[in-house]
C-alpha cells in the first residue's frame, strides 16, 4: 500500500525518538494520509541492514555509520536531519585527575561500537592518541548498554548521551561535580546524529518521494510539538513503551535534553554540518572511517517540499 511507511529506530522506544511517536500519537501522520509503523531497535539491530533487506522504508542513523554503509555499497541518502547538535560526550570521574584530552593516555574508556565508535576513533586520531591500549594510548572497552563500568570504576570514562546515560549516572546518586565531561561538540569533533535515511534508488520513484515528503513534514511537526511539550511527550513515550519498565520522569528529562539537540533544526540538513562531519571522519588517521568524501549522501529534495 502506498501510504504505508515503516521507520526503523536505532534503539528501544525512548524520548530520543519522541518526534515520531508524537506524530503518530497526535495523528499528524494520519493527517498526511500516512499509515506509519515505527520499528523499535535493539542491540544488534543494524538499521542499514534492515533497510538493505527491505524491512523498512526509512531509518534513523548516525551519519558516520550511514556514510560508512554508503562506502560499503549500500547507497543510503540523508533526507532530513531533525538533530542539529550532537548529544554525545565522554563522562569521566574527576578524581582520576583527567582534565583534558591529553590525560586520556593510559586510561580505560568505554565506547559504544556497532557503528557508534566512529566519532570516538576520529577524535582520538585527530588528537594523536592511539587506541590500542599501550601506555601512551587509551584502553578501549566495548561498553555495554548501561553505565555500570563507570559507577564500578571499571572504566575511567564512558560514552554517554546528554539525554540518556549521563542522566543515569546522576540518577545513581553521583553529583555532577564529581564528574568531568567532554562534549564532542565542544571538542570540534561533533558528527551528525539521528538523521532520516532512505535508499537512493527509492528516490527515483516519485510516489515514494511524495510519501517521504509527507512523512518528514509530519515528523517535524511531531518534533516541534515534543520540544514544546516535554512532559506530554514523555507520557506518550511511556504509552508506547511495551516493556512497561521505563520511568516517566526519566523520559521527560530525556525529552528536555533532546529538545536542546533538535532545537536548531527545521528538518533540513545544514550542508556546513555535513561538511564538518565528513571532515572529522576523513581525519581518522591510519584507519579512517571513510576513505573519500562521499557524493550524493544527502538531499534537500524532500525537505524542500516538506517545509514549504
Amino acid at each position: 500500500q502506498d501510504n504505508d511507511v515503516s521507520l526503523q529506530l536505532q534503539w528501544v522506544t525512548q524520548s530520543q525518538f519522541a518526534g515520531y511517536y508524537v506524530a503518530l500519537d497526535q495523528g499528524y501522520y494520519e493527517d498526511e494520509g500516512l499509515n506509519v509503523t515505527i520499528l523499535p531497535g535493539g542491540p544488534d539491530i543494524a538499521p542499514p541492514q534492515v533497510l538493505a533487506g527491505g524491512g523498512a522504508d526509512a531509518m534513523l542513523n548516525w551519519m558516520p555509520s550511514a556514510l560508512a554503509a554508503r562506502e560499503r555499497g549500500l547507497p543510503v541518502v540523508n533526507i532530513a536531519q531533525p538533530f542539529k547538535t550532537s548529544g554525545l560526550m565522554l563522562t569521566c570521574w574527576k578524581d582520576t585527575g583527567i582534565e583534558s584530552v591529553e590525560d586520556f593516555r593510559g586510561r580505560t574508556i568505554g565506547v559504544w561500537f556497532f557503528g557508534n565508535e566512529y566519532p570516538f576513533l576520529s577524535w582520538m586520531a585527530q588528537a594523536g592518541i592511539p587506541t590500542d591500549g599501550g601506555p601512551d594510548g587509551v584502553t578501549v572497552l566495548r561498553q555495554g548498554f548501561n553505565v555500570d563500568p563507570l559507577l564500578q570504576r571499571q572504566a575511567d570514562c564512558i560514552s554517554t548521551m546528554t539525554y540518556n546515560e549521563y542522566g543515569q549516572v546522576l540518577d545513581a546518586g553521583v553529583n555532577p561535580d564529581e564528574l568531568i565531561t567532554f562534549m564532542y561538540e565542544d571538542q570540534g569533533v561533533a558528527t551528525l546524529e539521528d538523521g532520516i535515511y532512505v535508499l537512493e534508488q527509492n528516490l527515483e520513484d516519485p510516489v515514494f518521494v511524495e510519501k517521504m515528503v509527507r512523512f518528514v513534514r509530519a515528523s517535524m511537526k511531531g518534533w516541534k510539538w515534543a520540544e514544546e511539550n516535554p512532559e506530554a511527550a514523555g507520557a506518550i513515550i511511556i504509552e508506547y513503551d511495551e516493556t512497561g519498565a521505563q520511568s516517566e520522569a526519566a523520559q521527560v528529562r530525556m525529552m528536555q535534553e533532546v529538545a536542546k539537540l533538535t532545537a536548531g533544526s527545521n528538518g533540513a540538513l545544514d550542508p556546513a554540518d555535513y561538511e564538518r562531519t565528513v571532515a572529522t571522519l576523513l581525519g581518522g588517521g591510519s584507519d579512517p572511517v571513510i576513505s573519500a568524501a562521499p557524493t550524493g549522501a544527502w538531499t534537500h529534495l524532500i525537505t524542500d517540499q516538506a517545509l514549504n
Partner: protein
Amino acid sequence: MKSLFPILTIVAAILVIWVLAVVPMNMHLTADQAQRDGLMVMPQTPAERQGYSGLGLSFANAGLIPLTYTLDRPRLPSPHQVAGEMWETIALRNVTSRQSLVYHGWVTLSATLVGFAIGTTLGILLAVGIVHNRAMDMSVMPWAIASQTIPILALAPMIIVMMGQFGIQGLLPKAVISAYLSFFPVVVGMVKGLRSPDAMQMDLLRTYYASSSQGFWKLRLPASVPYLFASFKIGISAALVGAIVAELPTGARAGFGARMLVGDQYGNPLVTWAALFAAAITAAALVAIFTAMERLTLRRMGMAAA
C-alpha cells in the same frame, strides 16, 4: 514429595550465602553514596576505596552494612528486594498491564510454544529421515552438531532481518530462533529412541513380513516415547532461552528478554533480576508439565512400572 525438605534446605543455604554476599558486593557503591550523604566513610576517597576488596571495606565500615541491603541500583540485589519486585510485578499488577511480568511471560511463552512446536516437528521429521535413510544419517548428523556451535545471538538479528524482508514480523521470527535451539535435542533423542528397539524386536517384525511403515508405527515410534519426553524436557527449556534471546534484537518490545535488557540499560537491576527468576520459574514449570505428561503417558502405555 520426600525431596521437598532437602530442596528447602539447599534453597535456605543459598539464600544465606546470597544475603551474606550482598554486603561485600554492594559495599563500594554504598560507601560512595554514604559519603555523598555526609556520612563518615573509611577510607575517605573513592579512589582509595578502590584499593580495598568488598570484604575489607565492609570491615572498615561495619556501620554501613544495613545500607547495602537497600540500594536502589545494587550490584547484587538482596533476596527481599528481588522477591518484592516479583511480588509487585506478578501479583499486584493486572495481568494485561505492561508492568505485569505475567503479561511479559505470556509474550515470551507464546513464542516459545510456537517455536517448540516447529522445532520438535522438524526434529522428529529429521530423526525419522535419519533412521530410515542411511545417506541422510551420514550427511546430516555432523552438520546438526556443528549448527549448535553457532552462537545464536549472532544469527538472531540476521534471521529477523531476513524474515522482515518477507514481511514476517512479530512472533514468528522469535519462534524460528526458538525452534533452532530446540530441534537439536529432539533430533538426538529421537534418533536414539527410534533406534532403541533391539535386533530381536526388529527381527520379530521381519518374521511377520511387516512393512517399514508398520515397523515405524507399531515398534519404533512407541519404543521412542520415553526418549521423546526426555528430549521434550530439554527442548522446551532450550526453546524458552531461544525466545528470550530473540527478544533482544526484535526491537526488545516485550517479553522477559526485553525486560532484562531494558532493566539493564536504564539502570534498574531489580527489573532484570525479577525477569531472570521469572524466566527460570517458567522453564521449571514447563519442564514440570512435561514430566507430568510423561508420567501419565507412560503409565497409560503400561511402561511406567517397568
